[in-house]
C-alpha cells in the first residue's frame, strides 16, 4: 500500500528546466517514480532527461494523464504554480520551494484543502515510498523497504533518522516530510490518519520541532484515533524562546511551542519519545 505516492503516481515536475528540477527528475526516476512530464512556461516542446516539457500543467495533464505534481519553481511563483496544478485537476502536489510568502501560503493551502487536494509543503523535502516512488529531494540511498511510516517537519534530520533506521534493518512504508513552515498544506494529523489506514504501515515515527502546537494537536488525535505504536522525537529541546531556529515555524513565541509541552503531550498519548534522534531505532525495536 504506502501513502500519498506509489506505483500509480504519474508525476509532472514544474520548474523542470531549472538546476534542481532537472537534477531531481533523474533521481526520482531512478527511484522508480513514473515521471511523465515537466512544465516550464515558454519552454514547451523541449525535452529534459528524456522527459517532455510543456508550457502549462493543464497541457501536461491532458497529454500525459499526470496525477501528481512536484513544484520546484522559485518562491515568488510558487502560489501560481500550485494553483495552476489544482486547477488542472492534479490531486497530489508536493511543493519543495522554501521562503514562500505567508499570505500566498494561506491562500494556496486553503484552496488545496477545500478541494480535497493533498498539498505537501511548501518548504519540504517531499515524500518517498521505498520500492515504489519518490516525489521530492530526499536522498534515495537512505531508504529501505519496510513497515514504518515516517512523518516529519524537518529535512536533513529526517534523513539522519531514516538512515539510522535503515542501518538497523528497519524499513519504511512511506516517509513524508511535511516541512517547516507555519502554514503547511499537510499536517501531522493528515498523515497519521493515512498511516492508521495503511495496511503496510505497522509503526509510526513522528519527528516534530519547537514552534506552534501541531504536535500537541497530533497527540490529541493519536489518543482518539491512532492504534499503531508511535515513536517521536522533538527537535529544539535546548532552543531559547523568541529566536527563530532556521525554519520559519521553529520559534517559541509567547510561551507557546516549547519542546517540553510537546513531549509531555505525546507521552500522555502513549507515544515513546526519544531524547536523541539516534535513539529512534532502539525504541522501534523495543
Amino acid at each position, binding site marked *: 500500500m504506502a501513502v500519498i505516492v506509489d506505483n500509480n503516481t504519474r508525476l509532472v515536475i514544474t520548474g523542470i528546466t531549472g538546476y534542481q528540477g532537472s537534477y531531481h527528475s533523474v533521481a526520482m526516476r531512478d527511484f522508480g517514480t513514473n515521471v511523465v512530464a515537466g512544465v516550464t512556461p515558454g519552454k514547451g516542446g523541449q525535452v529534459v532527461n528524456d522527459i517532455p516539457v510543456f508550457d502549462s500543467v493543464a497541457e501536461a495533464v491532458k497529454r500525459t494523464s499526470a496525477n501528481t505534481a512536484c513544484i520546484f519553481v522559485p518562491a515568488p511563483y510558487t502560489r501560481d504554480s500550485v494553483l495552476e496544478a489544482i486547477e488542472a485537476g492534479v490531486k497530489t502536489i508536493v511543493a519543495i520551494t522554501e521562503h514562500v510568502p505567508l499570505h500566498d501560503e494561506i491562500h494556496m493551502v486553503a484552496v488545496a484543502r477545500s478541494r480535497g487536494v493533498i498539498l505537501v509543503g511548501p518548504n519540504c523535502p517531499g515524500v518517498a515510498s521505498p520500492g515504489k516512488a519518490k516525489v521530492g529531494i*530526499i536522498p534515495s540511498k537512505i531508504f529501505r523497504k519496510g513497515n514504518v511510516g515516517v512523518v516529519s517537519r524537518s529535512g536533513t534530520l529526517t534523513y539522519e533518522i531514516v538512515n539510522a533506521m535503515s542501518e538497523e534493518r528497519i524499513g519504511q512504508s512511506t516517509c513524508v516530510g511535511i516541512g517547516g513552515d507555519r502554514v503547511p498544506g499537510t499536517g501531522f494529523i493528515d498523515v497519521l490518519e493515512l498511516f492508521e489506514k495503511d495496511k503496510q504501515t505497522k509503526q509510526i515515527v513522528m519527528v516534530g520541532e519547537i514552534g506552534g502546537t501541531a504536535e500537541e494537536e497530533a497527540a490529541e488525535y493519536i489518543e482518539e484515533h491512532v492504534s499503531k505504536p508511535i515513536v517521536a522525537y522533538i527537535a529544539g529541546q535546548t532552543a531559547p524562546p523568541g529566536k527563530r531556529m532556521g525554519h520559519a515555524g521553529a520559534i517559541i513565541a509567547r510561551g507557546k511551542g516549547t519542546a517540553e509541552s510537546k513531549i509531555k503531550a505525546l507521552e500522555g498519548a502513549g507515544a515513546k519519545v526519544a531524547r536523541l534522534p539516534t535513539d529512534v531505532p532502539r525504541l522501534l525495536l523495543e
Partner: protein
Amino acid sequence: MKLLEYKAKELMKKHGIPVPEGFVVSSADHIRAIPGPVMVKAQVLIGGRGKAGGIKPASTVEDARQVASKILGMNIRGFITREVLVEKRLDIAKEMYLGITIDRSRRCLLIMASPEGGVEIEAVPDKKILFVPVDPFIGYQPFMGRRIAAFMGLAKEQEAQVVGVCQKLMDLLVHNDAELAEINPLVVTRDGKVVAGDAKVTIDSDSLFRHKEFAGFPEDMTPLEEKAKRLDIAFVQLDGNIGVIANGAGLTMATLDSINMYGGKAGVFLDLGGTDDPKKVRDAVLLMEEAKPKVILLNIFGGITKCDTVAEGVLEAMRERSIKVPIVARIKGVNEEKGREMLADAGVIPASGLSEAAEKASKESLR
C-alpha cells in the same frame, strides 16, 4: 522583519488609522517645538521600553530636549536607542487591545481584541479576549469589525470608529504582507476619539522581494546575525561556547540537543541550508570564528552534498585565518571518505555519527 514604532505608525497613518501627532529625532537639539505635552519614546526593536526607562513625559521644549538626551544612546536590553519619537500625549479615557496575527492551527489569519489594553496580551485572561479567525474564503468583512466593536463595550460613536480601525488594520496587514499588526493600547481619548497609542508591525521576511520599500530598515539582530543574513545563512547567537554548523534547521537543533545531553552548551546555531558550495562553507566557518566559540562542531548530513567540497571550504577558512579553535567534524554524503581524509590531514577531529560528534565537542568545550 519587525518595524520600529514610528515606522509602524507611519504605515497606520497611511492606511487611515488615527495616530498621535509627533515627529522623530536622532538628536535632542533637533527638537524645536512640541504639540503641547508629549511623550518621548525610545525607538528600539524590543519590548519592555517603559520599564527600562525608555518612555518619559515632557511638557516644554526644554523638558523634551532634556528627556530625549537621556533616552538617546540608552541601552535597552541590548539595543542602543538611536532615535526617539516625540509624540503628543493622549488624554486617555480607556485602553483596549487590537491585533491581527496568524492562526497556525486553523491555517488562517486571526483577529484578537480585548477591552483590556496597555498590558501584554499574554497577561490578559482568554475570556477577556475575542478571537475572530478569518476564513480565507470569506476574507475580512465588516461584520467581524462590528462583532469586535460590540465586545469592547463602547458608546455607539466609538463603536463606529473601532469598526473602521479593524478594516484599516486588516488592509495594512494584507497590503504590506505583514504577519503581525498590533495596536496596544488602542486608546479612547477623553474627547471620544479612537487612536493608536502604540503600534507593532512585523513584515513577513519572505515577502520582501515584492516590498522594496522596506529595504535597509534596521532589524533586531546582533551584528554577526546581520552579517549572516547577508550571506543567506541562518545564524542565532546563544549563550554557550560550542559553535554548531549543520545543514538544515531540524538537524541543527538536534545537534544542539545532543550536545546538551553530553554536558556541552551551544553558543551559536548556524544552519547552512542545503549547500555544498565551498565558498558558503568557508564564509560560515569564518563567521563562526568571529563569534569566538571554544569548539566548532560541523555536522553535515548530505544527500547530494559533496563532502570533499565541504571539506575544501573548511580548509580554505582555516588557511585564511589560521584558525586555532578545535573543530570536530562529522560529514556524511557523497565522497565521504575523501572529505574525511582531507579534514583529518588538517588536524580536524573526526566523528562518525551525531552522538559521537556531540560527545567529542562537549568534551573539548569542557577542557
